[in-house]
Structure formats: C-alpha cells, structure tokens
C-alpha cells in the first residue's frame, strides 16, 4: 500500500476476509459481538491511516486480529464468557443442530488446535501461512491440525452415535 490510505482496498479486504477473520476472532474470544469489535478496530485503524499493511495482506489481517483479540482477552479476563455467546457458523437449514454441536466441540479442543483448524479450514490458509500468523513452524502447525481434526471428527461421530441411540 502507498502512503495514502486506499479505503476502497481496505473495504474490499473486509468484504473478502471479514467472515473468516470473524471466525478466527471468535475462536479466541468466544463472544461474537466482542470479536466483531476487535475486527472493526483492526480495519478502522487501517482506514484512518493509523497503521499500514505490511507483507501479505491476508497474513497481516489475521495476525492483527489475533493480537487485538489476545490483548483484549488479557485485559478483560473476567468478562470473557465461558460458553460461546452467539453462534458464528451459518449452516444449511437442515444442519442447525450439527452446527451447534460443531461449535461446541470446537470449543472443547485445546486452543492451539482450534486456532489452526479455523485458519486452515475457514481462513483457507496453507500450513506455512497459518504458521506465520501464529508464530510457529509449519511442521508444528501441520501436526496440531491433524491432532485437532482427528479429535473433532471422533467427538462429532460420538455425538451423532449418541443422538441415533437416543432417537432409535
């Protein structure tokens, strides 16, 4: 980006990546409206020209949202809800129950695994990009992802099995 703020460009980035960035902020903060505030904070700073995008825009945005969310969580530890406040995943009409179960199980995962799953699945990042955002090696990112994905799959299967047994 040049010295002058290209507001159109910043708004276009918001339109393209806003939803994935929201998912990422939610995976750290649990609270939808707080996550949205963090996202707006990051983009408003860009729009006002208080800060500039350096390097890859997508990596920059995810890193900025991560930092803002972690800072907020550190400063407002007592205000962070224990349960997810407001769903952040939209699902096909017939899969609302599954969407709730998925969000709930994602929350049960260790944060380091949840974070990499959100970056990879909804952020559409490869392991190198995701690793750069978190500040770990790509191998560690890949390893955390596989563990997390396997755990999530198993838990969802168990839920589905339990549901089948109770209805059947």
């Amino acid at each position: 980006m040049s010295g002058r703020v290209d507001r159109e460009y910043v708004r276009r980035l918001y339109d393209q990546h806003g939803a994935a960035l929201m998912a990422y902020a939610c995976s750290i903060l649990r609270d939808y409206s707080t996550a949205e505030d963090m996202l707006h904070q990051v983009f408003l700073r860009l729009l006002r020209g208080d800060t500039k995008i350096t390097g890859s825009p997508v990596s920059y945005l995810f890193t900025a949202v991560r930092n803002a969310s972690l800072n907020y969580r550190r400063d407002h530890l007592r205000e962070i809800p224990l349960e997810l406040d407001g769903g952040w995943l939209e699902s096909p009409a017939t899969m609302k129950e599954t969407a709730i179960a998925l969000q709930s199980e994602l929350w049960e995962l260790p944060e380091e695994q949840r974070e990499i799953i959100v970056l990879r699945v909804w952020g559409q990042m490869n392991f190198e990009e995701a690793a750069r955002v978190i500040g770990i090696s790509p191998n560690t990112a890949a390893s955390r992802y596989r563990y997390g994905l396997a755990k999530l799959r198993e838990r969802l299967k168990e839920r589905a099995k339990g549901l089948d047994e109770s209805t059947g």
Partner: protein
Amino acid sequence: MNRQDEEFEIFLLQFQPRRPRPLPEVPSKPRIGLRVLQAAALLGLVCVGVVHFTRQDSLRNGEQAVIKSESISPAPINTADVMSADHLTRVGLANPNDLDLMLTEASQHLLPNVEGSGSMLHALAQE
C-alpha cells in the same frame, strides 16, 4: 493429509462463518492541499521580507539623522582650557586686545544666542 481428513474438511466447509456487520463510515481527515501550503509559505516569506526591509529602512534613517546632526553642530571648543583664570591673566597681561577677542569668541559658545532669527528673544520680540 489423508483422505479421511480431506472428506472431513469438505464436511466442515458446509458451515460458513457469519458475515460481520458492515464497517462504520470513517470521517476523512482534513487534508491540507499542496496549493494551500504553497500559499501559506509565500505569505510567510512576504511577511518576513516586509519586516526585514522596514527594519533596514529605519536603521538607515537613524544613521543618516546621526550623520546630519553631527555635520550641523559646530566643532566643540574646550572652554575649560580657554576660560581658565591663569590663561586669561597671561593673555590679558601680554595683549589686552587679544583678551577682548578671545572673550568675544568664547561668549558665542558659552552664552545663549539672543540675536539670531531662531532665538527665543527674537520670537518674543515679534509678539
């Protein structure tokens, strides 16, 4: 990545994150145009120039006034030397005429001018 993982990823992608609210409008910062800056700089230069030249003029006038006043005033005479009692006695004893001349000349520097056209007495006499 095994096939199971890939299939599970596809399953997960059926769920999409909610879109956040649109960004609020940000008022644009007042930008000072280049022309405004240029005009301000030019105005500043003009002001500095005016002040500089005004000061130079006043200094030059002051110097001229001093030079004029110096050229008008007569050469100072050291009356203390001329009017000392010792000197007057010696001149009077040697040549009484010289004493008269000397006293007449000295009186023009020591006494106020009452005969000139610009003197106070002349002005009073005219009234």
